[in-house]
């Protein structure tokens, strides 16, 4: 039964509060494209992606019209390319990146994710070749995203991979220094990476997934903030209830769009990622939700507690709205992509250490953080290790997406534009962790990994 209040509420959410579907992401398995001849493999990759996702953008646009809701991104995630590189370890994996870029151009999608390797316990020759090719691959392509899983609760943290990724992140930023180091913004280092994540830059299509499926990532920080603003004197548990109700509505919309996309594309529906994903647009900030709860500025004392409550309430509301919740599901805190976070970082209220604490209670991790260009690779590795340790011990996904701002120091800003926003260079500790990082080896899995 339709009622006027509900209709107007939905329209207000979309028009004034930036409610949107952040992404529909088609996951495509490339396992049937594996070939010892890398050129033949690349052709198969291109053909398969285009045959499955040729229609994705058109279908996305059709659904936008049908429901009157913007679908901001249309994306593709693929099997980690290291698995294809494994059978031709002596060839240059960058050829795969070029094939993916060609496929992205043909399909008209915003991004293809999956230039990835899973090395939480060790490297195969294909894994290492792919990781070492990441700086070049992200330099010569525009729409390809890369991720590397270096740890998990089950297997511990591969410290050799952590060391290597410190160098790779820095090199990627340096190779794209003329484009505001954009390469590093397309590279994520994970602990406990998920196989069905629709969000970039960390999306890849896990090997446990079907041949092809469609995922949806919802958004809506502005809607949550607006809902809370109507109850300035409510207690915290009342706020939690308001967030749950709002998250329910947002997720139901994601479920509807995903089911419709699945029907139109004739591929199975994968998951709804019930996330609060901010953008730099005014009114689309997760930090502003925390401030609405009563913080003078995001990053001050109390931020972790507010975020923990927000993240939990979003899940509780969302999980009722969809029977196929997955992906990362929670509140994202990418600094450069959130107007409130940017302000807090510029004001010096939001520090790297506070962000690290926040990642223990919310989705993902240290995301879109600009650090000084002269940062040592070992320092990047040490930040990755800290973050991976939080993920490993807390049995959750954590990630690091740092952007070393080549030629810039604390107080300056990197401007990416668009959804990636802009980020102030944040200070890091100057004391070295090089000796720890250079030891190599593996941090053993924690005690609670032994569940069987």
């Amino acid at each position, binding site marked *: *039964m*339709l*009622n*006027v209040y*509900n*209709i*107007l*509420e*939905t*329209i207000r959410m979309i*028009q004034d509060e930036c409610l949107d579907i952040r992404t529909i992401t088609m996951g495509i398995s490339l396992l049937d494209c594996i070939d010892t001849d890398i050129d033949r493999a690349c052709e198969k990759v291109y053909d398969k992606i285009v045959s499955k996702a040729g229609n994705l953008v058109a279908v996305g646009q*059709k659904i936008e*019209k*049908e*429901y*009157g*809701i913007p679908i901001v991104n249309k994306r593709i995630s693929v099997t980690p390319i290291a698995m294809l590189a494994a059978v031709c370890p002596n060839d240059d994996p960058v050829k795969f990146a070029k094939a993916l870029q060609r496929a992205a151009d043909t399909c008209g999608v915003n991004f293809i994710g999956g230039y990835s390797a899973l090395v939480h316990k060790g490297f195969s020759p294909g894994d290492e070749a792919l990781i070492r090719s990441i700086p070049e691959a992200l330099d010569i392509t525009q729409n390809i995203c890369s991720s590397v899983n270096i740890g998990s609760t089950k297997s511990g943290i591969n410290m050799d991979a952590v060391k290597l990724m410190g160098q790779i992140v820095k090199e990627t930023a340096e190779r794209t220094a003329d484009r505001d180091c954009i390469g590093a913004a397309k590279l994520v280092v994970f602990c406990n990476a998920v196989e069905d994540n629709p969000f970039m830059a960390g999306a890849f299509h896990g090997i446990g997934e079907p041949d092809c499926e469609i995922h949806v990532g919802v958004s809506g920080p502005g809607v949550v903030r607006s809902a809370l603003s109507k109850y300035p004197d409510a207690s915290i548990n009342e706020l939690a209830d308001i967030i749950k109700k709002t998250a329910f*509505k947002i997720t*139901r*919309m994601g*479920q*509807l769009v995903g089911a419709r996309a699945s029907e139109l594309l004739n591929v199975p529906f994968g998951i709804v990622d019930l996330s609060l994903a901010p953008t730099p647009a005014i009114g689309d900030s997760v930090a502003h939700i925390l401030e609405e709860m009563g913080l003078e500025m995001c990053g001050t004392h109390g931020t972790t507690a507010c975020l923990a409550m927000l993240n939990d309430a979003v899940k509780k509301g969302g999980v009722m709205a969809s029977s196929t919740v997955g992906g990362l599901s929670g509140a994202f805190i990418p600094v450069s992509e959130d107007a409130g976070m940017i302000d807090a970082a510029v004001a010096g209220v939001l520090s790297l250490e506070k962000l690290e604490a926040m990642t223990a209670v919310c989705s993902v991790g240290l995301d879109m953080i600009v650090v000084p260009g002269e940062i040592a690779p070992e320092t990047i590795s040490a930040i990755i290790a800290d973050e991976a340790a939080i993920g490993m011990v807390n049995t959750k996904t954590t990630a690091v997406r740092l952007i070393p701002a080549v030629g810039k120091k604390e107080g300056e800003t990197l401007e990416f534009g668009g959804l990636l926003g802009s980020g102030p260079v944040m200070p890091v500790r100057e004391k070295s962790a090089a000796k720890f990082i250079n030891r190599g080896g593996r941090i053993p899995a924690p005690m609670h990994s032994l569940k069987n």
Partner: protein
Amino acid sequence: MRAVVTVIGKDNVGILHKVSGVCSDMGANVIEVTQSVLQDMFAMIMLVDITDMTEDFSQLADDMTKLGEKLGLSIHTMHEDIFNSMHNI
């Protein structure tokens, strides 16, 4: 299948006529209309049956948007499923 057309803006002569005209041109049957005028602000919600429509749904949405631009009104055309799924369990 039904769609919801919402029209919000400054009141003017013939809004209902013009909006329902777009519907009838495409074979979309108007089932229900709720409208109110508060001071000079016009707000209308129209429920339209689109089962036997002669054109694609996106054409209806496009034409409504164009009409809205012409009349200086905000017109949204959305499938009813979005409201049902968001607000009903």
